[in-house]
């Protein structure tokens, strides 16, 4: 029997999932901006208690079906996801009245109330209105459970990765974040495949500790730090990129203490939460997707050429110099060993990815597998990744759900020596002697690299890191009563790595020292993080008023991090096949183990008034083993308010122009803990040797420790507004933030005369970051056959050290006469050098300052991006992303070193007018120098000009996606087929004189001043990629 019933005439919107923040609001007249529900169709099918709800989700404007819309039943664990045709099905819905809510990014949420008769099937459609504000979407990060964005006082940025991958050319997780989140800076390590990038959010909050945000996958803390590959200079691989972006549904970014309080005393640099794809409850069929991708990877630079003038010895007829023998004295010759030897060439990526999503009435599953084989731009640079993920979400009863998830990945990286490392191709080429290049009997030129090595020698060095990563997790959701929700999360991120550094035995005397006769170093690492997390949420009405809601959340989080490393080194091998450590003539070993536990309790109360005004008050109490078991707990409070003022009647007259306006403000506190054992007074192992040559273990004072050590404390205020303009076709988000780190952990440099090899951390000083974030999302054009979506993101940053205890400047490191300093009144790691004051053309003398002066910041003061998607005939889309920054400087060390020490740059060797420096420019770089006060000064001055602006605009991404006609898809029994052609790093506009400003010479350093060494030092710049991707869906 088919019965049609009328639903309640006016239903509230903005309902939440089982863990959302508030009960349904008053069912009277809907507030402004809330979408009203329509009719439902009820079909009674059987005389059983539970019913079924089915329906279709469509775009209210175009009528097109919308996939991946989450439809939930409030107060239960029941939910479903719409399929490609927009349909959904919810089974086992208990009879009675319910509120169902449909949500998807890009659309305003729509809630509908319905009463389900016993055993009936109800048809309930959801026509969703496009919305650029996303206020009614759910965020899970930085909140106590899933919460509506509109209730959150602090901004949580989200990137819908699932949608992004359909139309862009991203290839890894850091690509996902680059240019898509305001105030999130991604700095590349180099252009080598697999090399890490550094992520900063809202500037740098610490000098001694890492400024990398902490990362969670589905609530489980994951290892996000870099895995060092020994001996490869500034190169490392990033654990974040072990993930296959195709497995990710979305990424949420919490930027600072205002939102990160509930993550405890380790979250002041921000939190990134990765939400993986899950099954689709109620789908009742299997959605499969196969994607194959091919990339061509271009080195995107030409290594520098060495120049020299022929010397008297080299021009002799008897000289072995290939370029100078028989030439006139002073003849200018040049050589480019890397180009001649073919060090860099095009690489490629071949990728095959499969995933399947499906589900039944009370379960959903997701299974994926991928294989990526990437060859980088040098022979010994590659990444082989095999990745698999499975998840099962099972709604055992309407009030009990359990999610299982298991991720497995195997990542095999190979990276070449790079940067300033031994046998780095660029630095060894720069150190090569042009006049020393000879010819062998066959007339072939010798290598031209330093130390007599060649490309074969460089390429034969193996730096490999193979990691197997296992990420199991389980999450239980239990809602015994509609007012009480519980969630328990248990999981782990287990990383088993094996790093190998291998120098082969060779007859050519390629290598020296321990590497001369075969060398192998193997490091096995177990880095595990375990998370146990409980969250409870009680939601009630306050004061007996249905429109005044209370969400009281409470919980506890325990995280344990263990790290064990065992290393074996073998020196002197007989053959390259017998290359075990134990095969070597000399064998050594080492072992490292650290253990850290943190424990936090948290509670949060959120009060909502009429679904438009929310107040939030929360706190976390934290303890960390880094401070010893006797240290006191750390109290971290938060407070905030969110006011959807556009729902006030007095603004209703502006609803066509300003349908959505939310004001928000938040204050919160988090921290950052140092490494395990940082507070202890320690000795170092220091073996001694007897007169008989016997080595015995001994000790030496290492670190006096600091029993008063505390975590760094970050506090942050942020405030701003979200606005939807022109029928929510334009969304604007503006945020001001002011983040202060006090109790700054600074390595207190002891006088070397005290005899310690290490210096203790002390809590002194304060650093501040403040700035403005600006986001505009818009659909300026929306025609049936043409639409244009545009996003503009900009953020400013003012980073400043406010105090350093009794000091004005505590730390300096130098490259040449250029220093990164931590100085009161300047940004962390700011550049200092003696500035050039004047040049006297008559004498050629250059005057430099008497002391080092500030010359620039390391962190950009302005970042921005602009992305645009044009969609034509609904099946062709063109996506472009431009990204840029200004206000920072980097030290261009390569030319500095070549000019001032090696003297082999074209500018130094060639005459003026033919590529060489004119007299002025030469003097500015090479002197002679005097100080401002008249003193004669030696050394390598004139470094001022090499600290160069890194202002740039980059054409970061371009992608053309063509959805192939259905008949073509159906020819291979697919439901959809698409082809994407794209490119990354297409062009760069910059005044930086090196290959690319976006490199960081010491990217392996997670803490300390080294993380601010924004310098180009013989580093291969970011590569350029051309991408072809073909996707089939079944």
């Amino acid at each position, binding site marked *: 029997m088919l019965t049609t019933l009328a639903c309640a005439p006016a239903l509230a919107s903005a309902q939440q999932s089982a863990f959302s923040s508030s009960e349904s609001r008053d069912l009277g007249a809907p507030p402004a901006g809330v979408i009203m529900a329509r009719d439902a169709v009820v079909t009674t099918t059987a005389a059983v208690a539970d019913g079924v709800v089915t329906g279709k989700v469509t775009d209210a404007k175009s009528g097109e079906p919308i996939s991946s819309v989450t439809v939930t039943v409030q107060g239960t664990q029941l939910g479903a996801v719409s399929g490609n045709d927009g349909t959904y099905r919810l089974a086992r819905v208990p009879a009675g009245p319910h509120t169902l809510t449909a949500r998807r990014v890009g659309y305003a949420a729509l809630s509908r109330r319905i009463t389900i008769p016993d055993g009936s099937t109800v048809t309930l459609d959801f026509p969703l209105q496009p919305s650029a504000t996303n206020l009614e979407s759910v965020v899970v990060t930085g909140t106590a459970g899933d919460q509506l964005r509109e209730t959150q006082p602090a901004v949580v940025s989200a990137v819908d990765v699932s949608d992004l991958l359909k139309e862009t050319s991203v290839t890894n997780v850091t690509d996902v974040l680059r240019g898509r989140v305001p105030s999130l800076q991604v700095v590349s390590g180099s252009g080598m495949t697999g090399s890490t990038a550094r992520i900063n959010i809202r500037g740098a909050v610490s000098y001694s500790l890492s400024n990398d945000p902490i990362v969670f996958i589905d609530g489980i803390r994951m290892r996000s730090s870099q895995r060092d590959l020994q001996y490869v200079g500034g190169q490392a691989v990033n654990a974040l990129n072990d993930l296959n972006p195709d497995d990710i549904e979305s990424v949420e970014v919490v930027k600072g203490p205002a939102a990160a309080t509930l993550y405890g005393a380790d979250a002041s640099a921000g939190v990134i939460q990765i939400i993986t794809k899950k099954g689709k409850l109620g789908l009742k069929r299997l959605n499969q997707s196969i994607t194959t991708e091919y990339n061509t990877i271009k080195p995107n630079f030409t290594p520098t050429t060495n120049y020299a003038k022929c010397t008297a010895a080299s021009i002799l007829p008897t000289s072995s110099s290939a370029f100078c023998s028989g030439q006139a004295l002073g003849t200018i010759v040049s050589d480019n060993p890397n180009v001649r030897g073919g060090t860099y060439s095009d690489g490629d990526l071949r990728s095959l990815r499969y995933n399947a999503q499906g589900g039944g009435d009370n379960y959903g599953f997701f299974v994926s597998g991928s294989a990526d084989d990437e060859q980088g731009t040098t022979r010994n640079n590659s990444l082989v990744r095999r990745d698999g993920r499975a998840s099962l979400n099972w709604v055992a009863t309407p009030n009990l759900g359990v999610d299982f998830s298991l991720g497995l990945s195997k990542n095999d990286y190979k990276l070449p020596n790079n940067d300033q490392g031994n046998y780095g191709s660029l630095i060894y080429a720069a150190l090569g002697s042009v006049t020393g290049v000879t010819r062998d009997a066959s007339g072939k030129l010798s290598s031209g690299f330093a130390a007599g090595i060649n490309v074969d020698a460089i390429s034969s060095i193996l730096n490999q890191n193979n990691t197997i990563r296992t990420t199991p997790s389980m999450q239980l959701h239990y809602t015994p009563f509609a007012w009480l929700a519980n969630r328990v999360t248990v999981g782990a991120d287990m990383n088993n790595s094996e790093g190998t550094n291998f120098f082969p035995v060779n007859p050519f005397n390629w290598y020296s020292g321990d590497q001369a006769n075969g060398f192998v170093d193997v490091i096995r690492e177990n880095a595990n993080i375990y998370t146990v997390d409980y969250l409870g949420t009680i939601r009630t009405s306050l004061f007996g008023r249905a429109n005044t809601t209370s969400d009281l959340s409470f919980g506890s989080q*325990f995280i344990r991090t263990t790290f064990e490393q065992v290393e074996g080194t073998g020196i002197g091998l007989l053959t390259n096949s017998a290359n075990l450590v134990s095969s070597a003539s000399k064998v*050594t070993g080492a072992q490292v183990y650290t253990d850290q536990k943190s424990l936090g309790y948290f509670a949060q109360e959120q009060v909502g008034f009429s679904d438009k005004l929310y107040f939030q008050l929360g706190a976390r109490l934290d303890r960390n083993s880094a401070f010893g078991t006797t240290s006191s707990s750390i109290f971290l409070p938060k407070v905030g308010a969110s006011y959807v003022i556009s729902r006030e009647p007095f603004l209703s007259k502006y609803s066509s122009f300003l349908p959505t306006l939310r004001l928000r403000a938040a204050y919160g506190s988090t921290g950052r803990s140092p490494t395990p054992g940082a507070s202890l007074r320690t000795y170092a192992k220091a073996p001694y040797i007897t007169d008989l040559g016997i080595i015995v273990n001994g000790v030496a004072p290492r670190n006096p*420790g600091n029993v008063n050590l505390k975590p760094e404390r970050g506090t942050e205020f942020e405030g701003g507004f979200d606005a939807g303009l022109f029928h929510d076709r334009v969304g604007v988000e503006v945020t001001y933030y002011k983040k202060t780190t006090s109790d700054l952990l600074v390595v207190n440099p002891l006088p070397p005369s005290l005899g310690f090899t290490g210096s203790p951390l002390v809590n002194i000083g304060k650093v501040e970051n403040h700035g403005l974030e600006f986001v505009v999302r818009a659909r300026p054009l929306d025609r049936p056959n043409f639409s244009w979506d545009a996003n503009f993101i900009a953020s400013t940053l003012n980073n400043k050290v406010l105090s350093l205890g009794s000091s004005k400047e505590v730390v300096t490191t130098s490259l040449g006469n250029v220093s990164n300093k931590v100085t009161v009144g300047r940004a962390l790691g700011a550049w200092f050098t003696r500035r050039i004051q004047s040049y006297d053309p008559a004498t050629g003398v250059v005057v430099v300052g008497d002391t080092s002066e500030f010359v620039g910041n390391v962190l950009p003061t302005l970042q921005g991006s602009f992305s645009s998607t044009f969609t034509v005939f609904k099946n062709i889309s063109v996506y472009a992303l431009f990204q840029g920054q200004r206000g920072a400087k980097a030290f261009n060390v390569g030319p500095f070193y070549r000019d001032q020490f090696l003297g082999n740059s074209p500018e130094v060797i060639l005459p003026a007018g033919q590529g060489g420096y004119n007299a002025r420019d030469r003097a500015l770089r090479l002197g002679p120098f005097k100080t401002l006060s008249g003193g004669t000064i030696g050394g390598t001055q004139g470094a001022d000009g090499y600290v160069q602006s890194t202002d740039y605009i980059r054409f970061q991404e371009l992608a053309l996606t063509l959805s192939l006609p259905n008949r073509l898809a159906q020819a291979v029994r697919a439901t959809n087929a698409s082809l994407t052609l794209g490119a990354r790093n297409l062009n760069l506009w910059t005044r930086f004189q090196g290959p690319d400003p976006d490199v960081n010479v010491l990217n392996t350093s997670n803490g300390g001043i080294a993380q601010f060494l924004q310098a180009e030092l013989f580093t291969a710049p970011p590569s350029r990629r051309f991408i072809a991707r073909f996707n089939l869906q079944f």
Partner: protein
Amino acid sequence: MTNIFRTARGTLRPAVLALGAAGLMLAACKLDVTNPTLIDANQFNPAGDGPLISLSAQTQFYSAFQSVVRYGGLFAEEHLSGAARTEVADIGRRNFFSANQDINFGLFGPLSRAIAGNKNVVKALSAGASAASDINLARAEMNLAFSIELMAETFCQGTIADVSGAQTVAGPALTPVQLLDSSITHFTRAISIAGAATGAEATKIVSAAKIGLARTYLQKGDNANAATAAAAAIASVSSSFTFNVPTSDDAANRPLANQIYSTSIPTNLDVVSATYRALNDPRVPWKDPGPAAVAQDGVLHDYQQQKYLSYSSPVRIASFLEAQYVQAEAKLKTADPSFALALIAARRVAGGQPVFTGTLTSAILTELLSQSARDFWLEAKKLGDWRRNGAAEPYLSAPGSIYKGALTFGTLTSVPIPTEETNTNPIGACP
């Protein structure tokens, strides 16, 4: 199947509650962890193990001595830096500032650790019942004395930490003479304590300390005491006596290896200069590995020293020969050239040189220093010789002359205290 799901559902609710309770229980657990990577000071009693702490501190001195051999040798031009690293090249051309990181890395830091380490041993063992004849204490006194003496030879001024209290605190600026006086005190104690002890090592410490004492008096300019101390050493020490840094080729303990070998032959960082190559003296052995041999910097040819041919080649700290040199110089400066002329004659024979015919005191001194430079090449003697004798010291380039490529020698004659020290211990710049 249905039953399985039903059973599972039935157990899930209590499981959730149990897990929730477990989570809360975890919240009550202690945060005890083990970090065996660290050696917690609370687990170690220095005074309870004299040999361990004394021999450990001795290794700190050995390490410092080798650093002075290398960096002091670069500064005094015994070898040239072929390193790509600019800081070390700047030390090699005596043209740098106190901010040069290699001052602390290569000289001040190792010497400070040796001084503080041995002072801590002296503090820990001095109160012992057998302190008057404690060989471990004697060893520490001697190594402390040598370390301070090297600081005085190397730096324009120095400083010594005060370890007498519960916390180690920085000390004031000390002039080279003050440092040498301190060194004399500790050498004297070492001789006294080791003299009261028995055994081969006690004898070695007495011998080495006597030679060190003579050297220190000479460096201070106290030629009369230097001559007396040297004579005492010569009278009591075997002519074959040497006190060496023992070294090891154990790849796992490269800090215990011969550092000059490490930075020359395997890694082509340091090369032999034209001046020393031209001496053609068997006491200054070197080789040219071939036309393709270039130093790491790509500029210098890699002429390799052959004095230390392996990681396990010992490095001489003090010797009977040194006592003879001290005596010869001290006597020469007190108007008795006979010891110097005799020594010069003997050493020229060793070097395959013709007979020396000079008669002027200045010429004799220069020749004596020339012989010293050859005999003690890369043994941390030349910088001290230069500090004492200034322009009489041979084989040094004039300020402004070419170092390598476009770089030139500077005007420094001693090493400034690094900013790492002066920034944290305001002793000021050298007067």
